[in-house]
């Protein structure tokens, strides 16, 4: 019974914690510009993150080796350092984006400029990281993110017509106002938003933090196979709301307040309160995850003690990296770079950097020296290999497309 409850809680946590600032921005933007024509990318991205996270969680559970250990072992010192530099930089942008997003949410509520809130938000994030235990931290914010379900309710109220939405989703290719290049660019953005590398850094390190054993593999499966797709449905609901409200009126999404508009327009103040609470919790949990990931990646590359399962003083360099990363992230946001733009760049670059992280995990998930009898099945390998091909193509196409479309403008 306790196990059932634990699994149920894990699913809800994964569900509520799935969406972050990247998903909010990418799904709202594409909904407003392309309707549901890019919805299939969200489905592809969710399947991708599901198999990626399941493999990394299983590797971490069976061998106690989290993702960046495996990257170092399989790519070697030099190539792993390249990966570390890229992943760390992208992750830092993501931390900045999440902190900026949190500050923007507070601006929406208080009317006071977001820049003032940035340092305070960063301090709040750090205090939670410093003080709160891993499992509590993960659950409280993950569960609070469930408030985002109001977007599904808003979509139902907006009533775009299921048949029309499905028809739009079945059309492949851009609307007449958009080019194929921007269509492809936003497809990559959506994929990057769903498959952000920090998710696997965090998820696999979390398996070690929570001291998962072979018995907990079912927890791993349930979290990933049920929780993530439910989170993906929320992403689609956000896209659907945006498509129903903004696309017919030719409005483009440039500010976080617009993400909340479908909810406040249909469900009024109560809905808006839920929405803001959900967004804040979801982004806060992502801010915690990305800040931790900064520490995880560096410490795991160099072999330092890491983790919140030990006293902070016993993992000094790990906590030092987190502290410094938060400081740099604050500086990035305070430079008045638009947090939404930072988010867009972070998710697109995430997509480009994926293969270097994905390949080592795929190889090790097949290696009985790490996995014993829990290696990948043939079926999983077939899908996983397909994704490898896709990710490599995306990775090659990203930078040229970014320049060609001037960042999707």
């Amino acid at each position, binding site marked *: 019974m306790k196990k059932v409850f634990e699994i149920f809680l894990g699913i809800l946590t994964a569900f509520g914690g799935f969406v972050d600032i990247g998903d909010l921005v990418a799904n709202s933007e594409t909904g407003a510009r392309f309707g549901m024509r890019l919805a299939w990318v969200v489905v592809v991205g969710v399947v991708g993150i599901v198999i990626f996270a399941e493999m990394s969680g299983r590797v971490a559970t069976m*061998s*106690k*080796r989290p993702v960046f*250990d495996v990257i*170092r*072992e*399989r*790519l*070697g*010192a*030099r*190539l*792993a*350092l390249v990966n570390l530099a890229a992943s760390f930089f992208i992750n830092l942008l993501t931390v900045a984006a999440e902190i900026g997003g949190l500050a923007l949410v507070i601006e929406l509520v208080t009317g006071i400029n977001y820049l003032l809130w940035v340092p305070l938000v960063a301090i709040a994030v750090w205090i939670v990281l*410093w*003080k709160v235990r891993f499992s509590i931290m993960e659950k409280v914010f993950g569960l609070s993110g469930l408030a985002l379900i109001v977007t599904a309710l808003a979509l139902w109220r907006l009533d775009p017509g299921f048949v029309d939405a499905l028809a739009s989703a079945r059309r492949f290719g851009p609307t007449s106002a958009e080019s194929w290049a921007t269509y492809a660019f936003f497809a990559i953005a959506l994929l990057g938003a769903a498959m952000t590398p920090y998710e696997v850094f965090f998820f696999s390190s979390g398996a070690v933090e929570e001291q998962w054993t072979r018995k907990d593999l079912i927890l791993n499966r349930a979290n990933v196979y049920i929780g993530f797709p439910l989170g993906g449905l929320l992403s689609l609901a956000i896209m659907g709301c945006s498509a129903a409200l903004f696309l017919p009126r030719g409005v483009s999404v440039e500010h976080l307040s617009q993400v909340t508009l479908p909810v406040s327009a249909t469900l009024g103040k109560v809905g808006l309160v839920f929405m803001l609470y959900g967004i804040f919790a979801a982004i806060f949990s992502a801010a915690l995850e990305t800040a931790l990931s900064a520490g995880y990646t560096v*410490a795991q590359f*160099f*072999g*330092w*003690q*890491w983790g919140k399962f030990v*006293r*902070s*003083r*016993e993992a*000094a*360099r790990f*906590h*030092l990296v987190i*502290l410094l990363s938060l400081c740099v992230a604050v500086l990035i946001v305070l430079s008045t770079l638009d947090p939404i733009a930072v988010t867009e760049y972070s998710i697109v670059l995430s997509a480009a950097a994926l293969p270097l992280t994905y*390949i080592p995990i*795929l*190889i090790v998930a*097949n*290696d*009985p*020296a*790490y996995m014993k009898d829990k*290696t*990948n099945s*043939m079926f999983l*390998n*077939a899908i*996983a*290999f397909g994704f*490898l091909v896709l990710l490599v193509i995306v990775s090659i196409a990203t930078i040229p497309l970014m320049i060609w479309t001037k960042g999707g403008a």
Partner: protein
Amino acid sequence: MRLADLIGSVVVDADGAEIGDVGDLWLIQDGPPMGVFGAALRFDKLVIGRFGLASRAGYERPDVKGPVILARLLGRRTKHRPVASWSDIAAIEEGRIRLRLRNGDLERPRSLEQPATGRRWSAGLELLDRQLVDPDGWMAGKVDDLLLEFRDDGPPVVTEILAGPGALARRIGGRLGAWIASVHARLHPGAGDPATISFGIVGKIDDHVTLIVSRKDLATFEAEAWARDHVIAKIPGSSDP
């Protein structure tokens, strides 16, 4: 001799023709006794062929099979690579290894096969870049490099694990490597060389390397202690469980 210097060296056969780079080093555990680890790891075979993603994937091992296409592609590049024993080597020069044999006469085993007695290891795949863990489960750095000692009475033996930025710098190489080395030397005046961990305190090697000495007694702990004493321990709550 550091493993990092060996891997990547050019191998030249008896006719002076280049065969390829040193891709890996196979070790066998039957050297002279060395602490709790038992018999030391000694030089077994020099594997010729690049040490890239293909060799690190480990698909030449028969029990690693999937995904099929990846296994085929990468496995083909690592199966039947030429190997040279210690007695086949005429001279080890800087960045160059001369063999006594001709390319055609070299042994080409299908893959790393276990001998009847003892255990054979791929230094590149099974030792390098592995996590060091102390007896209480604390993480204590990575196997950044290995030190091999030449011996009069036989093949070289692995005597030391090198860990920390001083050892990592040479693995990374180039300008960045030189920069890391110089920063490390600046921060650790006097030490200069990388931290060494005697192979005699290695307890066990599996997907990580377990040591029998606490991390606090290793040279790799210096920087961790610095960060703890000067920053983290000064923040209230650093000792909370």
